[in-house]
């Protein structure tokens, strides 16, 4: 095994171990929407059909287990820990026994998960079925561990992306990026839960890698097929992937135009191949919906039809969701720095049902290393500005992917504004961009220079490890303390 591949595997293993720890330490069903995702898997595994409604009426089995776990008492109430006494444990065991005796098959309702595509749930149906003789907690744990494996895929592709996107190396920058991303607490937390985000992160990281590979090594039939297939997988994983699609298509067009210079019109066949494979699940989905008299693109069609406000207002809102408001425009978030108080704070520490946080000073302290990383990254970008100019098409692709996702999150949030300020301003929705985050970290390590680079790389990884360990301790203290 080559050194690079060995390092990629180690990054993957570190991410799997990390997510496995999170899967054990996060109290059952205390991750965003986990009861709904579990219900979807139950329906798919037991009836081979999709949930039919988005109501919060879970199956009797799941409701009993949630009651035994004191789910609603614990959720969003940091003062309420998990089960701490023997009587509570006895009650849980009784409820789990009763749950096992429930003979309701499937779960027609899957809450917010109902509108999601089925791929991730089909994968989770395997551990669900394998652990069918176990208690519901055992089944959930095995499903969470399956998600944890996907964290490994994510970290591996982030490493490989850094290697392709920063081919000049040195190898330490790829290792530091891969390891740091493997240790991102939010990746561990989300991939340690039953949630399609785990697969979305993995697919998105793979898309970035294969795009970078095509930009560096050339666009061929294999690359076109792989990128097309990954887009199809992404679309079958979670609706949020739609945000990435325009950027990926832009990348395919740029790659095709380049390839056409050398190979003529045959390059356009590659584009058609990639688009055909990518859009095949969408076409199939639209056809099924059209035949059954439903909106062709399901919830997406409904969302587009219920847009409110002017386009300018929406653009202004989306801008302010991430960046400071421009003077002269309406301020949709007065008194709040969204970048610092929502996004940065959410990245540093916001676990469970968004109810588990560090003390306030931690978020202020975290600004120091974050600023140092940003400065080093900017320094390297400035130093490499000529090389960046030569790769404008590639960078525009990555930027378009990022902007597409940010725009989608913003548009979804605007849909519920002003009743809710920013319903989807959650950092977990940004983790499909982990590959870009990894590349930024790699740039920061390279920005430290040849002399201090190794030390900066080690310091960066230790920083991420410390963040991860203390985040896990925070969760342990919150649920079991």
């Amino acid at each position, binding site marked *: 095994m080559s050194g690079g591949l060995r390092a990629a595997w180690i990054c993957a293993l570190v991410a799997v171990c990390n997510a496995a720890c999170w899967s054990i330490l996060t109290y059952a069903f205390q991750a965003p929407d986990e009861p709904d995702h579990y219900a979807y898997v139950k329906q798919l595994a037991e009836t081979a059909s999709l949930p039919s409604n988005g109501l919060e009426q879970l199956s009797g089995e799941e409701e009993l287990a949630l009651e035994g776990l004191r789910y609603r008492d614990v959720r969003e109430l940091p003062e309420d820990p998990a089960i701490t006494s023997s009587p509570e*444990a006895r009650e849980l*065991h009784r409820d789990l026994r009763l749950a096992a005796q429930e003979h309701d098959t499937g779960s027609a309702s899957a809450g917010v998960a109902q509108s999601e595509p089925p791929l991730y749930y089909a994968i989770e149906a395997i551990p669900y079925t394998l652990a069918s003789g176990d208690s519901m907690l055992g089944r959930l744990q095995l499903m969470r561990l399956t998600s944890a494996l996907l964290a490994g895929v994510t970290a591996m592709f982030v490493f490989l992306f850094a290697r392709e996107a920063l081919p000049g190396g040195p190898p330490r920058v790829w*290792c530091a990026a891969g390891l740091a991303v493997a240790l991102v607490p939010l990746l561990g937390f989300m991939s340690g839960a039953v949630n399609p985000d785990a697969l979305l992160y993995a697919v998105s990281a793979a898309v970035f890698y294969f795009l970078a590979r095509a930009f560096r090594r050339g666009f061929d039939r294999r690359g076109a097929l792989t990128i097309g297939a990954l887009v199809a997988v992404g679309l079958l994983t979670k609706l949020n992937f739609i945000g990435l699609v325009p950027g990926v298509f832009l990348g395919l067009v740029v790659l095709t135009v380049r390839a056409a210079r050398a190979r003529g019109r045959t390059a356009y066949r590659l584009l058609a191949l990639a688009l055909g494979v990518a859009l095949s699940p969408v076409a199939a989905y639209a056809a099924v919906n059209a035949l059954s008299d439903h909106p062709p693109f399901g919830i997406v069609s409904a969302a587009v039809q219920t847009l409110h406000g002017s386009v300018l207002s929406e653009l202004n809102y989306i801008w302010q969701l991430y960046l400071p408001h421009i003077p002269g425009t309406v301020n949709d978030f007065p008194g709040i720095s969204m970048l610092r108080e929502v996004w940065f704070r959410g990245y540093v520490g916001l676990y469970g049902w968004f109810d588990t946080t560090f003390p306030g000073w931690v978020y202020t302290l975290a600004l120091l290393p974050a600023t140092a990383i940003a400065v080093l990254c900017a320094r390297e970008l400035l130093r490499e500005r000529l090389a960046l100019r030569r790769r404008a098409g590639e960078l525009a692709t990555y930027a378009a992917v990022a902007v597409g996702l940010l725009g989608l999150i913003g548009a979804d949030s605007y849909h519920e504004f002003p009743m809710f300020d920013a319903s989807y301003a959650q950092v977990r929705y940004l983790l499909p961009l982990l590959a870009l985050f990894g590349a930024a970290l790699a740039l920061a390590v390279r920005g430290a220079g040849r002399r201090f680079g190794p*030390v900066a790389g080690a310091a960066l990884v230790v*920083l991420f490890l*410390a963040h991860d360990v203390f985040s896990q301790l925070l969760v342990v203290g919150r649920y079991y303390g």
Partner: protein
Amino acid sequence: MRGVGITLAVGFTAMALAVGLSLLRSPATLTRTNGVADDTQTAVAATSESAVYCQPNEELPAHTSAIRISLVASIGPRTRLYVLSAGHVLTSGEQGAGWTGSALAVPVRQLARAVPAATVCVAFRLRDGMLFLLGEDTPPDRAAREGRFALPGRMRVEFVSPGTRTWASMIPAIVRSIGLSHDGDGGLIVLVVLTLLALLVGLTTRLLLTDLP
């Protein structure tokens, strides 16, 4: 290689020290609540504008380090909390914007003595979005107030102070709780987690020492 080794040694030592120091600290514990049940809470106020809600007849325990109010917001505004007695502010605190969830804990300056008849006020500036104050319905004379107007009920208020037990002394109880929550042997589960962490640290160190120099 030497620089990386030293960085790792310093980093891991600092981390071990920080974990040790954290274990010697005491977690905040709930000292008392104002009796408003947390499982039957209803919205006693809902607003999309700046507001100040005050609630009389609260008993502030001595050494209260934080006061938790049942507020719900998707992105909470900057919130100021103050405790009044006989028209004077005895203690106060502030929580920056960006909080979320259904309970907001605002750190306040500790007082050495208890205050038997205090008024707890919570103030925030809001322009868009909704903020809900949770509690239970009560007669107007016991209710929280917005200016001169009585709200339909009292908000739930909880008083938090530093506990007497350290995190270190609570480890056996935490291990037990992990076991109870997982329907298994807490010791074994913690051992699995520690093994995974050791593997993670070992792999990370190995890669850093072999590939970073």
